[in-house]
């Protein structure tokens, strides 16, 4: 019996030692906790986070959720009540940051289609009006994080993509 108890203690000790030696755990735990924190961010927190880190050529203004829906062609009859937010430009450039949360009325796929329509119309408009702005639309970031879909059209879309990751 004593021998059995001694062995159990050894095994417990060995697990403890093995755990302490695993130096990569804290880093991965941090990564996972960052991802779960990102998944719990509100639309408003997302657009502020991106606006703080990504450069824009235009003056950007945060507008309300109702305007976010109006600009992206989401109408009352769609029945959408998801959390959403938008930073919009003066129209001198197509720059914007938008975040929409899927709900029972509009799934991520539905929202993705709305975003595609919006970016397509913007490309068509700016191709004539300010063709130098079109590359910003062509490299626009569209990314899903949890139940949210994030759109960024900025002066540095590569950086936007990096910080969302």
């Amino acid at each position, binding site marked *: 019996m004593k021998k059995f108890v001694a062995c159990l203690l050894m095994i417990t000790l060995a697990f403890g030692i093995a755990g302490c030696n695993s130096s990569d755990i804290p880093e991965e735990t941090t990564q996972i906790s960052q991802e779960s924190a990102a998944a719990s961010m509100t639309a408003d927190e997302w657009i502020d986070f991106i606006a703080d880190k990504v450069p824009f050529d235009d003056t950007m203004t945060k*507008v309300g959720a109702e*305007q976010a829906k109006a600009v992206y062609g989401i109408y009352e009859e769609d029945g959408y009540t998801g959390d959403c937010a938008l930073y919009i430009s003066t*129209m001198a450039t197509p720059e914007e940051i938008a975040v929409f949360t899927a709900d029972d009325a509009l799934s991520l796929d539905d929202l993705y289609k709305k975003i595609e329509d919006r970016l397509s119309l913007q490309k068509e408009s700016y191709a004539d009006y300010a063709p130098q702005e079109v590359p910003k639309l062509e490299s626009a970031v569209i990314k899903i994080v949890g139940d949210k879909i994030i759109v960024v059209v900025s002066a540095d879309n590569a950086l936007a993509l990096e910080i969302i990751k």
Partner: protein
Amino acid sequence: MNKSSVLHSLCVAVLLVLSAAIALVLTDISHSTQIPAAAESLTELSVTETEAETTQQTTVPIPTVEIVYDEYETDIEQENFNKAVIIGNSQAQALSNYGLIKEADFITRIGLSVNKVLTASEGEPLINELYGTDYDKVILVFGENELGWPYPKNFISEYKKVINEIREILPDATIYCHAVFPVTKSHSEKDTIGVNNENVALFNELIKEMCEEEGYEFIMYSDAFSEDNGALPESVANDGVHFNYDYCKIWASELSKVLSEE
């Protein structure tokens, strides 16, 4: 130490090594199942990862939007926009996007000019959006994109075609033609394609003349948009043309007052 003790110690050592190995394997397995699960929440739908274009423009950090022009009226009487439609270019679209005028409807496009209202390269012409409506106020915001046209009178003849069509659809509506807003002094001076304040003044004379002849209402902007030199204040438009939220608010307020006078 007898033979039995040595054997016992050896057994314990082997057990210790085995336990450590098992623990390490289990730890690795648990991590390799957690990370992709967490990563699944970061599904990438469609991202073109081309390098962002290098731009000659100065990158401006997002400024805090505050109403700093307290001397100008910014009250917007929404009820004055009842049954009103605003048709026009990117400046009108900014007014729409900022959500400053809730009561009016907007028919706007980036880069819209008068010669693109009645026709469409794809789909329906914009003018068709007026069919089946009962607007009694039509506010037209055109001219900025036409400033570079070689013959300004062509702008007026195209403008008249648009208004005639609107009158066919909405015979009882009052037509308001908005003046072309000035650009900033720096933009005007470096201009090479006609988007300068000399042309703004010329176009506004032509629009005003058309309104007087045809019985339309002409809406002139206030002094807020025109400094002593006739230019838009430098601080309100990054590109010298499209003014910021603060100025759109002043504009919306001015429009609501114009409509209340009718």
